[in-house]
């Protein structure tokens, strides 16, 4: 109990250090540049205290639940018994890891679809486009983008191919799409990648990638473990630009053949 309290107090101190900069910045600018007192000082201080306590609990929970869960799924989905192959006599091909890709895609798809900040962005997009882009269509395309991105990312870990080939390939697709996509949607599409990588998804997906890289023979967590989040934030951009393009074609029909 004493150990645990010490540990808790230490974490609390570390977290104080972490949120100190933003507190100093906000309050400093408020008092020195804007020169107005805080509107609700008491509420604000209680709020900061909540943030502090929240981070401590969250980080503690990550270590107990989300990180172990990610590596557990990675190891259970890659054991030779589960794959149904004899690792001594048969070579394991990338097709054997079918369920790994399905798992990654399901996690990506479901978390993106449930992401509250994405809902807000999607509603805004429906407004901007005057209804040609539907909120639901946008959410589904982001979710497909994240799901596909994570599946491809796990495929990369399994095969051990170079991360930058995929990402730079993705960049080139984005460049080409930007040339043709409706101008109004570009900023929003670009931002949709960052929006989907939430506080809960990031740790789980990171643990999954590191877990896969340490259990799949021939992979090294140092070299292959990271990179999933990059996939999850690049592919939604492609999916949203693609969706906007299709929505524009559908609404304008053949009239939109302006250069």
């Amino acid at each position, binding site marked *: 109990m004493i150990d645990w309290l010490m540990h808790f107090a230490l974490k609390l101190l570390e977290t104080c250090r972490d949120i100190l900069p933003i507190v100093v910045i906000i309050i400093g600018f408020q008092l020195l540049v*804007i020169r107005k007192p805080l509107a609700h000082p008491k509420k604000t201080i209680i709020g900061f205290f909540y943030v502090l306590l929240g981070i401590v609990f969250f980080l503690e929970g990550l270590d107990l639940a989300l990180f172990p869960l990610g590596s557990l799924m990675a190891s259970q989905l890659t054991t030779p018994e589960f794959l149904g192959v004899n690792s001594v006599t048969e070579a394991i091909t990338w097709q054997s890891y079918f369920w790994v890709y399905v798992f990654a895609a399901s996690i990506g798809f479901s978390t993106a679809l449930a992401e509250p900040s994405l809902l807000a962005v999607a509603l805004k997009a429906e407004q901007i486009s005057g209804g040609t882009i539907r909120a639901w269509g946008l959410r589904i395309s982001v979710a497909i983008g994240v799901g596909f991105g994570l599946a491809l990312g796990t495929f990369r870990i399994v095969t051990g191919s170079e991360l930058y080939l995929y990402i730079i390939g993705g960049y080139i697709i984005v460049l080409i799409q930007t040339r043709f996509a409706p101008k109004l949607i570009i900023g929003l599409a670009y931002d949709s990648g960052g929006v989907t990588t939430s506080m809960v998804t990031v740790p789980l997906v990171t643990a999954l990638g590191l877990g896969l890289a340490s259990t799949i023979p021939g992979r090294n967590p140092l070299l292959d473990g990271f990179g999933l989040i990059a996939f999850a934030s690049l592919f939604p951009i492609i999916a949203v630009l693609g969706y906007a393009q299709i929505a524009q074609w559908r609404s304008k029909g053949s009239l939109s053949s302006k250069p």
Partner: protein
Amino acid sequence: MLQHPFIKQLFSSFLDLAPILAVVLVFQVLIIHQPIPDVGSLIVGTLFVIIGLTLFVQGLEQSLFPIGESMAYALARKGSLFWLLAFAFCLGFGAAVAEPALIAVAEKAANIAGNGHLIEQTDAAKAGYALGLRITVALSIGLAILIGVLRIIRGWPVYYPVFFGYVCVAIMTPFAPVEIIGIAYDSGGIATSSITVPLVTALGVGLATSIKGRNPMTDGFGLIVLASLMPTIFVMAYGMAI
């Protein structure tokens, strides 16, 4: 009782986790058919995550967010370019330093680097590596927000800085040490999560609303993408430097 904001927040934190729990459960029951070790600590951990998220979001909504938002409006109306850019940089930096997902992943990355003998296998070396990583990411996010704000003020198209960033990433990758590339590519997505995204979006939309000739819907977006691109460049540079 159910209308109490805290209870509502508790419920919505649970909803954040629900899709993950559902997918894992379906896989465990239908496909893997293996017992889960340590169910007890998984449940306690999940509860901690839910409580933590609830307190965190509740706290942000009653402290940082309203102040940050009103400040973005006030500074935009004040019209001083210097203070606006200074605020943009500081806001990006401060938000990224406090980002819980980045704290957790940086620690993880330091452990991996230690096990891979990239750095010394001591707690001090790992803590130093993790902190260095976070400070690098935070500096780059500050710079990204600064450039993004400048872009909104000047009215540049959003793809100019993004394309430039892409080219930088493509050129730097062959020269960066291979061990840093994965974490560098990931760092942007990790850092743009629960504090950075809402604060930065509020800043962008606030600015685009108060500057004449800018449309909040089109010019207000585009800050997050810079904030997720710039860390990649900076972390690769950090990898080259150490």
